């Protein structure tokens, strides 16, 4: 796409559909781990930006969990002023390159976009990604105004998107912030969970570097709770804490055969491939085994990531086995679409009953049953009900279980007085205050598994509350009755 600014404007205004984003050919990309979409060119971004009507009431802003001033950043894109555009985003979102790639825009900012009433909404996510990448390609990022050091020391536990956001905001306010991470690298799920082809690790490194420029310190290999308790950290001078340790305890289906070789939790499968680099055995020592025929159980982004990783590792047939229908799938539209393009086969309304032993301790097949949708359940989605007598055997030799994660217990167990729900999620008020004064929490450890942007929103809210707390507002909620 090329043209004068006026031509681009005209093209954009009239266009009913999103400007397509070029991407690697599906046949080609299933053989590599490089990022799938190439991103917009300057011209594509400008044309797309003209589709934005800059609505006065801007429903997109309220659709965004961190309330990015979307019309304002898009207005800057229209003028080709990409640096200002990224500046607008960074006022409320310190990880735009990440969010532009992994946010479920179709159920947040884009779902309420007026352009979506007739045709497709403005491609807000693609534009966000574009300006963030543009900034990265044009020298050092512009830093926000950082308050002078205020002499207060605070700790963030868990270096996922929520913790990173919280740390960034606190650093800008002048705090001495240290992020403690159990792994040897930053990013949390952005690094161990989301594959390279969807979120290149160079971007996580870039965002980490940006936080370093803001003055955030990182302390890796630190299993807080085990090596250092919150109480000890308090004695060491930390005045407030943000716990963002995430949902890191994989659920299994509790069916026969889950202990067989060839059965992975999605966490194990993806951590081996991503964090430990097992997809590149020439250079990395962590092994991974993938079957010829792989079944991935679940319908979320993690399931899509696992399925597409299995394909890239050489599995010849990859199935998504999901007990509900396509409409109920929690994965982003784009991920489902990409998985389909790449040849992942979707077995919907089917549920595993048993994983069979091949006689040598490895997966020899999976017994499934067909389902139909009944009445809505507590989640509002129609409950899948098994169809009697519809059992069948799926011929697979590898199974990846991607049905979700519970909260990681390590820090909770080591922190007496920290109130948790019956599902072991930390109980907080709306500002992230836990049952222990000075200790805040947010993200998946509080809500159960959710999205990157929701965790970031929680980190942001908590940063404000932590600031108020440290500066003297010691009011603390009574969480006794909350559960």
């Amino acid at each position, binding site marked *: 796409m090329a043209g004068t600014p006026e031509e681009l404007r005209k093209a954009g205004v009239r266009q009913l559909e999103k400007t397509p984003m070029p991407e690697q050919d599906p046949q080609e990309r299933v053989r590599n781990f490089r990022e799938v979409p190439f991103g917009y060119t300057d011209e594509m971004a400008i044309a797309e930006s003209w589709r934005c009507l800059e609505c006065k009431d801007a429903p997109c802003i309220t659709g965004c969990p961190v309330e990015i001033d979307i019309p304002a950043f898009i207005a800057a894109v229209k003028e080709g002023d990409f640096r200002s555009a990224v500046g607008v985003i960074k006022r409320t979102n310190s990880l735009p390159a990440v969010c532009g790639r992994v946010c479920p825009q179709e159920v947040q900012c884009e779902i309420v976009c007026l352009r979506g009433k007739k045709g497709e909404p403005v491609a807000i996510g693609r534009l966000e990604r574009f300006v963030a990448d543009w900034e990265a390609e044009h020298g050092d990022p512009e830093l926000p105004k950082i308050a002078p050091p205020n002499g207060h020391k605070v700790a963030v536990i868990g270096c996922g998107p929520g913790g990173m956001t919280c740390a960034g905001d606190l650093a800008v306010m002048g705090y001495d912030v240290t992020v403690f991470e*159990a*792994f*040897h690298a930053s990013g949390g799920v952005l690094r*161990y969970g989301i594959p390279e082809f969807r979120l290149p690790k160079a971007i996580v490194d870039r965002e980490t570097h940006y936080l370093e420029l803001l003055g955030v310190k990182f302390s*890796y*290999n*630190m*299993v807080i709770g*085990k*090596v*250092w308790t919150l109480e000890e950290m308090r004695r060491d001078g930390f005045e407030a804490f943000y716990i963002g340790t995430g949902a*890191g*305890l*994989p659920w*299994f289906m*509790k069916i026969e055969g*889950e*202990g*067989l*070789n060839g059965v*992975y*939790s999605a*966490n*194990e499968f993806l*951590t*081996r491939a991503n964090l*430990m*680099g097992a997809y590149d*055995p020439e*250079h*990395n*020592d*962590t*092994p*991974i*085994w993938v079957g010829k025929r792989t079944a991935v159980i679940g319908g979320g982004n993690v399931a899509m990531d696992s399925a597409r990783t299995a394909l890239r590792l050489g599995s010849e047939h990859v199935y998504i086995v999901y007990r509900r229908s396509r409409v109920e799938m929690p994965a982003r539209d784009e991920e489902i679409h990409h998985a389909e393009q790449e040849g992942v086969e979707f077995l919907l309304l089917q549920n595993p009953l048993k994983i069979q032993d091949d006689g040598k*301790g490895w997966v020899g097949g999976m017994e499934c049953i067909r389902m139909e949708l009944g009445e809505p359940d507590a989640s509002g989605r129609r409950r899948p009900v098994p169809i009697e007598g519809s059992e069948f055997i799926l011929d697979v030799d590898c199974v990846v279980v991607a049905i979700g994660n519970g909260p*990681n*217990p*390590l820090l909770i167990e080591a922190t007496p007085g920290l109130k948790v729900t019956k599902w072991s999620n930390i109980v907080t008020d709306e500002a992230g205050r836990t049952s222990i004064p000075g200790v805040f929490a947010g993200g998946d450890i509080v809500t159960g598994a959710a999205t990157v942007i929701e965790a970031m929103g929680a980190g942001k809210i908590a940063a404000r509350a932590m600031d108020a707390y440290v500066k003297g507002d010691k009011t603390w909620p009574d969480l006794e009755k909350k559960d």
Partner: protein
Amino acid sequence: MFKIVSKKVLGPDIKLFDVEAPLIAKKIMPGQFIMLRIDSHGERIPLTMVDRDAAAGTVTIIFQEVGKTTRQLGTLGPGDAVADFIGPLGRYHPMGGEHKRVLGVGGGIGVAPLLPKTREFKANGNRVESIIGARSKDLLILEDEMRAASDELVVCTDDGSYGHKGFVSDILQARLDESTDYDFVLAIGPPIMMRVCRDLVKPYGVPVYVSLNTIMVDGTGMCGSCRVTVGDEVKFACVDGPEMRGEEIDFDEMMARQDRYLAEEKCALDRYLKEVG
């Protein structure tokens, strides 16, 4: 980076390191483990703590060179460092107490994690009887340390090159024939040895503990690679163990799971050996 302060060769392919890790050294308890990664291309491997010196800030580990990672680790020495050293991981179980009678069984490299447990049993006032063994004399480790920590020590080798000839389980059987008046038995070693010991002890109703060294990735409960079936429950060795009651562990499944990456590990080792000549 975590510096290797000292190194000892305990036997063919068996090495001991003191690693500088002051925070962990202050906290780690018998039965707990660390995960280490040599460099940015390395894998994370779990190793159970053998000793610690809080004042010196060091943690002692012992490993046997089996695959690529442990062979590469074995080439390091004082002055070198590993990229990552994470812990303490796993649960700490205080066991026994005054006037309790305890039987510890250690096979092969399993004697290494048994040593700090034995020392702790002794310090807590237990009467400690220990059985340690190895395939042959040169593979037997920590005999003097175990003797000093135990009230009574029996040593055996599979080939009879030192001590009694036979497996540690043979000695265990002989002990149980004499008396079953033990408060508990702790058996640490290769899975097959732990299973045999468990099977011997279980009928007597004496509680039996084992320490599981299953395949792990993160060691913090995140991946489930280390899962074992215990009765009708699934436990994670990394966060529920590594020490566990042994009675209900499905050792058949556990041993099959230990073989998951044999082919990949062999490739990695062959490649490494070719590289280093």
